[in-house]
């Protein structure tokens, strides 16, 4: 069965330090993977998407993610956290063919300390 696991429900970092948000997936097919960010009381905004063209994907606001098939991972990173990065982050898997079903992780809440 296809699934997405976000390994940490909460992550705290100090401003200016690196961010690592972890995502593992399970899929029998070649997946499409996304990271979304949700600020309080807002909808979800796309950060980046994996399209199989390149394993290292760069997104908005300095975020990037690396697709590692051998580890079935798609971790989100940023070299230096900013206060405005405090939000909830969702890793999402979609099958690349057939159904339009998207599978969401349970989210990671990022806290950035001054």
């Amino acid at each position, binding site marked *: 069965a296809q699934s997405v696991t976000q390994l940490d429900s909460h992550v705290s970092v100090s401003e200016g330090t690196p961010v690592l948000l972890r995502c593992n997936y399970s899929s029998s097919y070649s997946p499409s993977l996304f990271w979304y960010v949700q600020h309080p*009381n807002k909808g*979800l905004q796309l950060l980046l998407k994996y399209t199989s063209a390149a394993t290292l994907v760069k997104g908005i606001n300095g975020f990037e993610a690396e697709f590692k098939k051998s580890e079935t991972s798609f971790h989100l990173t940023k070299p230096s956290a900013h206060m405005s990065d405090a939000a909830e982050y969702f890793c999402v898997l979609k099958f690349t063919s057939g159904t*339009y079903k998207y599978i969401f992780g349970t989210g990671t809440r990022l806290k950035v300390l001054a």
Partner: protein
Amino acid sequence: DVKVTQSSRYLVKRTGEKVFLECVQDMDHENMFWYRQDPGLGLRLIYFSYDVKMKEKGDIPEGYSVSREKKERFSLILESASTNQTSMYLCASTSRTSGSVDEQFFGPGTRLTVL
């Protein structure tokens, strides 16, 4: 700038009331979705529509119905609201492009409280 709008940001209803949540997208997308979001559970799909008047049940359709009479508009209906339907409701849309990776575009959400 692409946009998905939802009719209300906050809504308070009483148990047993019929509730309509409206979603409109201006991107000419074929696919539209309704999710509910609850803490610790992520987003769960309620219903999905891939064309006008076409719909498919998602993972948690019980207690909900949907209507898609026009391509740009997708409505979620709670026939008789109950307290366990208190949640954040998110609408999304995607295009139906063969072979491409289609991200979803989300509305701002409706926070529904049922008393």
